[in-house]
């Protein structure tokens, strides 16, 4: 017969008696329960909250949302604008252009940009530039949105 160490049994008994006596059982067993995730609501039954972002995105082109964060003049004939672009997961934008020369900084997502004959890989940290009114499409191959910070320079 296997002998369970007496000291260990005593420890467990003392432990359990303290736990029970002090009403801590739910706390002690806390890890066993888990409230679980909330049930999913079918999209057709979704009741939208009235809360909306302070600086919301709006649709710029099919598959592409944009918002302006900042706009200023340099006083020497150039308008500087900071925009955020967003491409949904697994989405490809329609061909579009921006009204000025642009510098793109990729913040999240993975994919490609096609502009004319050129195709560029887009990964977080990549910076690239685009000439004024150049048309482009972006494909986000990630399963999360692609966020791009754009610095736009236009003549006033």
């Amino acid at each position, binding site marked *: 017969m296997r002998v369970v*160490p007496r000291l*260990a049994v005593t*420890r*467990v008994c*003392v*432990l359990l008696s*303290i*736990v029970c006596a*002090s*009403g*801590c059982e*739910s*706390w*002690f067993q*806390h*890890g*066993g*329960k*888990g*409230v*679980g*995730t*909330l049930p999913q*609501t079918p*999209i057709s039954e*979704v*009741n*939208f*909250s*009235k*809360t*909306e*972002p*302070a*600086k*919301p*995105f*709006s*649709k710029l082109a099919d598959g592409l*949302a944009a*918002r302006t*964060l900042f706009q200023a003049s340099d006083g020497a004939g150039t308008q500087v604008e900071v925009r*955020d672009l*967003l491409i*949904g*997961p697994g*989405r490809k934008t329609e061909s579009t252009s921006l009204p000025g020369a642009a510098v793109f*900084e*990729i*913040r*999240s997502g993975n994919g490609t940009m096609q502009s004319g004959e050129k195709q560029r890989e887009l*990964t*977080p*940290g*990549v910076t690239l530039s685009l000439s004024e009114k150049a048309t482009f499409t972006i494909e986000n191959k990630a399963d*999360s*949105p692609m*966020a791009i*910070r754009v610095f736009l320079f236009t003549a006033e």
Partner: protein
Amino acid sequence: MSRRDWMNLAGPMFLSLATMGVAGCSSHWPAFRHDGLRTGGQLRGGPLSNAAKAAKLDIVWSFPASAGVAMNPPLIAFRASPVIYKKTVYIGNGNGFLYAINAEDGKLRWRYPKNGPPLDQTFHSNPSSNGIASSATIARINGVDAVIFGAPDKSIGAGMGSGRLFALNAKTGDEIWKSPEIAVLLNDGMTHEQIGYSSPLVLNDHVYIGVGDHGDDPIQRGKVVAVFLSNGQIDSGFSFFSTGPPRGGGVWGSPAGWVNGVYVTTGNSNIGASEPVPDHALSMLRLDPNTGSITWGWKPVPYDLDQDPDWSTTPSVMLSSCGTLAVSTEKDGWTWAVNTGNGTPGSPSVRWAFPPGPWTTSGFHSGDGTTHGDTRYLRPGAVWDDVYIAQTGGYPVTANPYEGFRHLYALNACAADAQRVRWIKDVPNSSQGEYSLGPPTVDRGIVYVGTDQGHLVVIGDPLVVAPDGMRCYDPVLPNNICQIFHLPMVPDPHVIANVNLNAGTINTEPALLRNGRVYVSTDGGQVVMLKPKP
């Protein structure tokens, strides 16, 4: 878990529960974040876990007006949170005195020091250096209920206000012990350690406290000091410094503890010179409670990306259904959950990052599009079962690290990344900027949080009360865009109560008692008690 594992755990668990008997699952609020795990949760339930009753919260008294006598010196901003035990509120003020207040009527029971000079220091660089910023902890010392806290004291060291620990008789305010000098403050232009906001952790037969500095310049070496609970003497067998000389890794937050581990977070070390060796700055660490040696350390932001994202948020230990996790938000806005492990030294095992990304397993790298600056995500989160509730950067953090200050998140700690966000709330009557919210607390799904506009806001998890509707899981996206992109939507939970305390900004945690009382301290130098109206 095998029988052998269980037997091996029984001893440490016994010790932990014995010493955490005061704080472990108390119906009181005997420690910063309620307990040594730093859950910020009242686990016993009561009127505050009932939405109908919580909706009727009303102010009962406000100290010092309730005391009926003028305070001399007057109270200034509270940066310590109240702890409550056996119908007494214990709280230190920026004026250098610790007050014991009758929890029922707000009358003053005693103060410490009774007659002597205030506990203060020569340098006042930020609010953590005004008087007593360390929230107290209740413990039993040789059969006596004791209140333990950290504070500066000009009667030791160089007379500048070096930091030490105090243990007082909770009933009378008489001294039980005072530790030796722990945080050294000298007039040499170099040495300026301080205890600041760090609240003592009582675990087994020791008291642990973190040490940071007075607003850097020059930055100090962070450390954790352990003293014996019985007499306050420093345990020389325990030693932890965040970095090698000369600098870095301040322990600004409070240590957390469970069974056989002490958990801390550390500030930055890069001030433009060479990297100290070793460098455990910007890390969440598990320490051996006996020796201070590192069991594991998670350092997601490497030295070359260190733009001062001090990790100063007190970690929470979650006894979740998917294992025991250490969870905390770094100052840059990323939240991390690390499996605590069994105490065997080794590499950290990261369970998840929020937001998720390639950094989850390997940390951040140059050129990955992320930035890690002095963005002030400093507030500890609250734990309710498998749910972690905190102010965190969220999905927009890579594009705009400040966006997270607009929102309070509930995260599912045991779910897959795609289901991490449980709900998002834009808390009313908050500026939605840095310091807009105090640390949240929770009572069985009902969340309590103070705002910088002086409101106590009560929010119900959708399991408790129906939400106001659904919103995009990425809060910068309007609902229609979210729908077009087929992105997940999450509940916008309902505000159950919103009470203007008219007592100034709230930077501290609401303490929740099982009997339905809520205690809040404010920048206006007041402690306010609320309870549901009949």
